[in-house]
């Protein structure tokens, strides 16, 4: 439903804009106004931006894995947003160049009345578009707050999923909740079963309270930013329409002022136009006017109107370019950061790492990667070193909970068992690819052993030796239950102590 809504809006705006473009071209042919023709092409660029956004929306509907893309096409919207942002920047660049051109060669506006009429029509269409897309506008606030507040009451169930029933009056919100809404509602019963069990466990773990609050934020996020990638996409479109609206405003203002204040050269009779830098004309008119002036001084020479009017257009364009660039930059940055596989803003990898390390049974963590697929889908992978499989089984659930609290719901945890005849348990991956593949790996297994060489060594490699130092007691208690491992564990310890020193 939500997608239909977005698509409907996009298609509607697309149709309107294209129609207007055709109308503008026709009018410009009739009135042979070049300025209107070039303005109509701005509308065409709008159409292209809408097409990009539509394509992205179509793609992003397919969330299933396919042969070509194991994640589905959810990311298409983020890419659509980036493409639109770069496109808009390029357009700003060309508008800037046009403005500079106008500075050197100012043009008069011919037939300002027609320009005003068409400009006003374009402005109306753009304002309509702004209203259509304002819902997803700069940050989508209107939608966000409604959910945020209704969530505030849910402090005591931090780890359960979103609230069972959606707020009744918020029809828009219900529409925006994709097809998983029914899933959420029907799962509330099963959530209820687990809730009690989770409540029992809650007493054991003191740090859950902290986690609860930390986990609350992603819950807000997940409700609010249900389609935050879609929001990015719509923001791109919104910015295009906004830029167009600004352009229309400038056209209308300029034409109005021109109509009101400009003193045009009459077609007959001499006219001196001081603003247009045309050598031939100047000489001709000057000689003519001088000749005439000799005859009679009463005869007034029409001088074309105030020159600053001609420079109004480029100045306004410059201002518009600055505004547009200022508003486009955040969108560009956000979509680029997602595409660069960076850690989402709200997640602190250091604290996550320390939370995981403090778990009993976890000896070391490496290859911890967190990235955002699109919207609220955050993916994490980690390699966790445990002494043996049974310890891992006990700890696996808690690991997933820690990730869940941070808002990372799709995780792949690889357990590695240091007990199986290893001695260099210094946080090195037990199951890397063959040695010569080190450089083709995402991060190279060489990084742990060469941790000291890298100037800005990641905290992860340091943490492995830290873990060993911090928890000598736990390891010894473990070794009691698993006597076979005891000696090896101790020797490991000593080795690592020496090496860390």
């Amino acid at each position, binding site marked *: 439903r939500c997608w239909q809504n977005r698509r409907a809006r996009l298609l509607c705006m697309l149709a309107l804009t294209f129609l207007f473009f055709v109308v503008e071209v026709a009018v410009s042919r009739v009135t042979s106004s070049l300025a209107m023709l070039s303005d109509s092409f701005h509308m065409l660029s709008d159409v292209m931006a809408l097409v990009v956004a539509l394509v992205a929306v179509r793609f992003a509907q397919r969330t299933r894995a396919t042969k070509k893309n194991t994640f589905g096409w959810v990311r298409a919207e983020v890419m659509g947003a*980036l493409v639109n942002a770069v496109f808009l920047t390029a357009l700003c*660049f060309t508008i800037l160049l046009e403005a500079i051109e106008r500075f050197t060669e100012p043009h008069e506006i011919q037939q300002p009345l027609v320009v005003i009429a068409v400009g006003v029509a374009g402005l109306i269409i753009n304002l309509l578009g702004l209203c259509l897309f304002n819902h997803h506008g700069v940050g989508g606030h209107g939608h966000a707050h409604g959910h945020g507040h209704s969530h505030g009451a849910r402090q005591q169930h931090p780890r359960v999923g979103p609230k069972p029933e959606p707020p009744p009056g918020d029809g828009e919100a219900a529409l925006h909740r994709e097809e*998983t809404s029914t899933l959420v509602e029907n799962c509330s019963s099963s959530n209820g079963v687990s809730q009690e069990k989770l409540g029992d466990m809650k007493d054991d773990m003191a740090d859950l309270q902290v986690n609860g609050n930390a986990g609350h934020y992603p819950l807000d996020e997940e409700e609010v930013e249900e389609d935050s990638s879609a929001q990015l996409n719509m923001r791109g479109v919104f910015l295009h329409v906004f830029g167009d609206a600004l352009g229309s405003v400038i056209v209308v203002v300029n034409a109005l002022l021109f109509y009101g204040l400009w003193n045009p050269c009459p077609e007959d009779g001499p006219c001196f136009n001081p603003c247009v830098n045309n050598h031939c004309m100047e000489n001709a008119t000057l000689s003519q006017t001088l000749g005439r002036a000799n005859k009679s001084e009463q005869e007034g020479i029409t001088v074309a109107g105030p020159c600053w009017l001609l420079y109004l257009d480029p100045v306004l364009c410059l201002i518009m370019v600055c505004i547009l660039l200022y508003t486009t930059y955040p969108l560009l940055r956000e979509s680029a950061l997602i595409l660069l596989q960076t850690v989402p803003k709200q997640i602190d990898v250091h604290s996550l790492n320390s939370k995981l390390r403090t778990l009993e049974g976890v000896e070391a963590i490496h290859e911890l990667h967190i990235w955002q697929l699109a919207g609220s889908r955050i993916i994490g992978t980690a390699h966790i070193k445990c002494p043996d499989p049974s310890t891992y089984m006990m700890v696996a659930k808690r690991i997933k909970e820690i990730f869940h609290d941070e808002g990372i719901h799709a995780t792949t945890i690889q357990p590695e068992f240091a007990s199986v005849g290893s001695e260099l348990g210094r946080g090195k991956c037990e199951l890397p690819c063959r040695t010569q593949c080190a450089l083709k790996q995402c991060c190279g297994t060489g990084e742990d052993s060469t941790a000291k*060489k890298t100037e800005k060594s990641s905290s992860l490699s340091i943490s492995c030796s830290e873990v060993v130092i911090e928890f000598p007691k736990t390891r010894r208690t473990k070794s009691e239950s698993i006597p076979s491992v005891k000696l090896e564990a101790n020797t490991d310890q000593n080795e690592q102590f020496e090496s860390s020193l």
Partner: protein
Amino acid sequence: MGRYSGKTCRLIFMLVLTVGFFVAELVSGYLGNSIALVSDSFNMLSDLISLCVGLSTGRIARRSRRGPRATYGYSRAEAVGALSNAVFLTALCFTILVDSVLRLARPEPIDDAQLVLIVGTLGLAVNVVGLLVFQDWGACCRRPPAPPPAAAALRDVPGDTPEGEAAEAGDSPNDQKSPEEGSEKKKERKSEALNIRGVLLHVMGDALGSVVVVVTASIFYVRPLGDAACNWQCYIDPSLTIIMVFIILSSAFPLIKETSTILLQMVPKGVNIQVLTDRLAHVPGVSSLHEVHVWELASGKNIATLHVKCQTPADYQDAAYKIREIFHEAGVHSVTIQPEYVDHKTSQLLCSSPCISKACDSQLCCSQSEPPQAKTNGYTEKNNSCISTGHKDNGSSKRDIEIPIEDPAEDSLKNCDISDDKSQASSTRF
């Protein structure tokens, strides 16, 4: 870094040359009233911008340090930079196209053909120099060989994990290193190429623009128009420009497609996911697989994650090594495998340990609730019957803490059917 000093010098040289020439071209374009020259000069400016973008992203990507903000480093910056350059170029082509169409509607002759010709030829020379400079860079960027200490350290690791890995590790790494180095250099070149291709595209567009300018100006120089009305000569400029735009667009498109493959997390080109999952499913010890994801971080670096269901931990450890072998042969070297143990209660196909509650489903990278159709995402079932072991009891007791999956699974399957119907209905409504 020492090895970049040569390139930096060349780049600064190119930058300075381009800036100087841009100014010269702009001025003479206005004086000579040639739109081709004006647009060509703006192409130089856009060239500069694309050069800066390409260089800065290349530098960011090479630094590539993992940190708390980016766990994979920034090696993807090249792809993003290349995409930005390609889109920027497309937008510029669009505006040039618009200008040409307007010129076709209102043709104007070139006034000062001689000046335009001179400046145009110089511009062409600059562009050709640029092409040569970048071709040289892209083609033979000689990296020093892979850091030997890392390889040596890895070589010394005795076989910690069982079976043949020790043999592989100590097994004549020298002869295995050189072809790897060769291919690594090729991959490096390929990743450079992605970044540099964006810049090259701009320079090439520039060169084409200069060619058009020179052709038009020479025609006007040889057959000056004087004060006569515009004849066919006035239409050459815009029409050639339109042809040029199409040439540039046709070469920008493949670049966009390639960067999309990386940025959209698509399966990398050399990997056939169908064949791969089939081979993985046939590894002994593996009951089933799901959540198989393969994607490309940056050129040459492929990453995979998957969940395997096994009967026992011993099965898993045997299988893990073989799974990695299979991935290695497919060209994927960073693999994270999550073992899950077979449980009578859970369907073979669904994940035993998704996030802790079913409600997180929408946040999962791929919805768990969707029934595994015969799609290729590794939803393969083995024919082995479930063998219950002692360990399975531990597993099932652990399962009690988790949300029992079988009932909600049925519910969720039902819901999915309902929601699928709804979504289908809504799409047909539209």
